[in-house]
């Protein structure tokens, strides 16, 4: 029943060689994205979402970063093993990426038409007229009014939301099968956020590409995701469907995230927060990385790195303590 996974990330490890020592920014992350699915990667700032995404496309500068292990299969090929030349073919054509900061992700000295055209001509030999038509159609598709005029504009003539639409048009230019959207709405205000998320949804319905949405905001995820992966300090702590994650979160970290969403509490009450801060990736606590902030912490958490436990149908969480509790409850 489930479609063939398009992207399989298996136990990806990315370390940074820093002055403070080896920063294990991503330390064993696994997830899969099926054809035409929207998969969300959720986690606090600094937990390694961007690093995971960049390493899928081989975009991390490789002296400071090093891929310490893992596999990234895209349509059966391991992207981590590819030569630069072949990897460039994949980028933009089969997988493309939309970044967090629309203000700085476009080159200030070229018109947006020129920048979209560059993506098209990099991957496909098309003539000027055809690429022009495609640019106009793309800008139309991403909801930019009067594209013929707009394509002559420089990025500074556009608002943040419009720029993000242009970035999406660039990402779509060669009809990739997977779009990685790294917090595409974080820098935008709430109404624009909703518009952009809707745009992704519409485009997906039209074109059927898969989307890997990266975000730190669980409320963004609820409406769009088929499957959610929750990350904490470079590891995956919980995965499941939207329903499973929102109805019965199994990892204490996910519970904390959900409780800290505004609107979950009665009016007048303070928002719940998770005490403490994300551990320094160069200096993680032994055992479960979340244990210093966990309210269910037990002795074993401080020494033993937790296993992924299978709670129900494809709903996994990295917390044996909760697993034991649930077992007792249901028995």
């Amino acid at each position, binding site marked *: 029943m489930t479609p063939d996974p398009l992207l399989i990330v298996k136990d990806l490890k990315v370390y940074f060689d820093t002055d403070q020592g080896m920063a294990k920014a991503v330390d064993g992350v696994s997830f899969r994205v099926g054809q035409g699915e929207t998969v969300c990667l959720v986690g606090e700032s600094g937990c390694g979402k961007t690093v995971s995404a960049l390493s899928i496309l081989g975009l991390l500068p490789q*002296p400071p970063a090093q891929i310490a292990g893992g596999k990234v299969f895209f349509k059966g090929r391991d992207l981590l093993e590819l030569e630069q030349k072949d990897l460039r073919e994949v980028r933009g054509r089969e997988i493309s990426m939309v970044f967090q900061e629309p203000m700085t992700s476009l080159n200030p000295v070229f018109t947006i038409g020129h920048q979209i055209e*560059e*993506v098209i001509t990099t991957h496909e030999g098309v003539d000027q007229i055809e690429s*022009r*038509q495609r640019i106009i159609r793309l800008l139309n598709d991403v909801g930019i009014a009067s594209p*013929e005029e707009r394509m*002559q504009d420089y990025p500074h003539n556009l608002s943040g939301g419009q720029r993000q639409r242009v970035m999406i048009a*660039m990402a779509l230019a060669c009809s990739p099968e997977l779009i990685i959207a790294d917090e595409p709405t974080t820098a935008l205000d709430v109404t624009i956020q909703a518009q952009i998320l809707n745009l992704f949804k519409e485009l997906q319905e039209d074109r059927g590409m898969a989307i890997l949405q990266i975000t730190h905001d669980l409320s963004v995820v609820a409406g769009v995701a088929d499957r959610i992966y929750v990350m904490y300090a470079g590891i995956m702590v919980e995965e499941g469907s939207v329903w499973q994650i929102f109805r019965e979160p199994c990892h204490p970290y996910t519970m904390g995230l959900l409780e800290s969403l505004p609107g979950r509490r009665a009016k007048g009450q303070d928002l719940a927060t998770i005490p403490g801060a994300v551990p320094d990736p160069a200096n993680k606590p032994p055992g479960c990385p979340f244990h210093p902030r966990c309210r269910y912490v037990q002795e074993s958490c401080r020494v033993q790195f937790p296993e992924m436990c299978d709670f129900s149908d494809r709903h996994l969480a990295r917390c044996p303590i909760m697993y034991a509790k649930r077992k007792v409850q249901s028995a």
Partner: protein
Amino acid sequence: MQDSGSEHTLSTEALDLPARQTRLQEFWAQLRKNRLALIGLVIFVLFFIVAVTGMVLTTGTSPQLDSSLVRLQEKLRPPLSRPNLKSLQADEVPVLGIYLLGTDELGRDVFARMLQGAWVSLTVGFVAVGIAVLIGIILGGLSGYYGHSPVRVAQVFIAVLVVLVVTNWSRLSFKTLAVLISITVALAVFLLFSRKKEFGGPLFLLNTQLFSVDMLITGLIDIMLCFPSFFLILTVVALLPASIYNIMIVIGLTSWMGAARFVRAEFLSLREQDFVTAARALGVSDWRIIFRHMVPNAIAPVLVSATIGIAGAILTEAGLSFLGFGVPPPHATWGNILSDGKNYLFDAPWLTIIPGVAILVVVLSFNLFGEGLRDILNPKLRERH
């Protein structure tokens, strides 16, 4: 044309749409607001025209001399004086009918010599700065973009071997050449395949990282900056046969460090910019990113330093000619007109004042234009006007 009917008409209509303000128009509008830069540009354009017309008008092989003049006093004639029509052939009379800027100690028309010198100054300025900027962009760009990449022992060996082979090409026997070349090829092959697999033992030494590309290039820049450049130029010019081309090349080769530093600094910051990562994420190649995305962003400060550098090169050439190391006679340059004229400072002050003022005005106009350019190209500085 016919098969894609309506959509095609749509796009051709779009092609004819009136363009919004292009970058050039915007640039022009900004320039008009900046008076000093505009004055600089006007003088610069005038200078350019003068230099080009000068080259066309002064095409004779030798100067036209009035053979009837014998004494120095007769030869040194002040500006606006008339030529001696009795003793001159019709084609020896200056085009304007008068010696506009007087004549020098040999009775040569100073106006004609200034025109000829303008062309020399212009080419020296542009070619020298062109060389400097080219080297600066390439080296600065390499060290800014590939700065982290290590240089391995094997690469150093290859470089040394290549230099050996190239410089001793004719002197080495066939056997040694063959050995050297095959070692080089073997090292290159080793480098190609040693990236992924580990080599043990002595071969591993070849793969050790010596220093980074950045360290190599900044080191070179620092070494070059240690030499007082004017004396470096003097030394080199004294060793080489005096010619206008050697001067251009030498000035260019000793003044690229500023441009290289600019470009390196710009690239270091541009490399981390989101739009560079975004372009890479969409499959744009490294070379295209460097030349199409980063260079246009880094070019503004380089352009500014280049305009100011042209002024510097003109001054340097004038200084060299003044000291007698510059362009050899009979070629006229502003520097050697000035230097010849200094002997007659009191008898014929125009011989020093005219080239002096010309150098001053041109250098000043380049500087003004350069500074204006900096304000115009940098949107943050632009706000202040």
